[in-house]
């Protein structure tokens, strides 16, 4: 199955847990899959300079980000033996406790799914032009720094 085509990655707002459950359910027809690996990024209520983060507002250079996501997909399929690969990232406001990144890899044997998922998460954090604005409870903000 070719999955290298450009796919819709960005979702408006948080990624609902039921969306993740539904994505998993869709793979029950792919009976040669033996292992799924999933990474979820959740917005933390970090305390910074005495203020608590209540949400992150994500923005991106969408046209470029879509290309970078497609390149990451392509590299992952070349590097690992994958049956399926899905990446979703939020745009706009995501509250603390909600999910903003969903990476989902599937393979015959577990090694490929596990390593590919980790690889993709690192690539997304490093290479995709997306920015998070951490909004505090008093509505001031700072720009998020990835570590």
């Amino acid at each position, binding site marked *: 199955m070719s999955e290298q085509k450009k796919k819709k990655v960005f979702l408006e707002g948080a990624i609902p847990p039921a969306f993740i459950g539904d994505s998993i359910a869709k793979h029950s027809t792919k009976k040669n899959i033996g292992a799924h690996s999933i990474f979820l*990024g959740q917005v933390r209520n970090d305390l910074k300079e005495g203020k608590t983060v209540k949400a992150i507002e*994500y*923005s*991106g*250079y969408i*046209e*470029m980000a879509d*290309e970078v996501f497609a390149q990451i997909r392509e590299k992952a399929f070349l590097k690992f033996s994958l049956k399926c690969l899905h990446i979703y*990232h939020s745009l706009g406001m995501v509250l603390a406790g909600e999910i*903003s*990144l969903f990476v989902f890899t599937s393979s015959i044997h577990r090694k490929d799914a596990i390593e590919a998922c980790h690889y993709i*998460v690192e690539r*997304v*954090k*490093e*290479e*995709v*032009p*997306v*920015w*998070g*604005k951490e909004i505090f409870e008093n509505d001031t903000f700072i*720009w*998020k*720094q*990835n570590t």
Partner: protein
Amino acid sequence: MEINLLSFGQIVDITGKPALKLSGIDNTDDLSKKLIELFPLLKSIKFSVAVNKQVIQKNTLLNQNDTVALLPPFSGG
């Protein structure tokens, strides 16, 4: 010659606009100088530059209608 300049993240807070047009600039080094003139606060920020969605590492010639993006450090995920 006119180019499209896109700003993202905290750089929008400095340039004031996500998109603007600039003319009379031939290459990205000249663009950087011009931007520092226009927006001195840019000096305080680390950012990379993409020309037509490709991040560049060295001075790059610009053509009519090229899109140049100012990209502060990414913080997705």
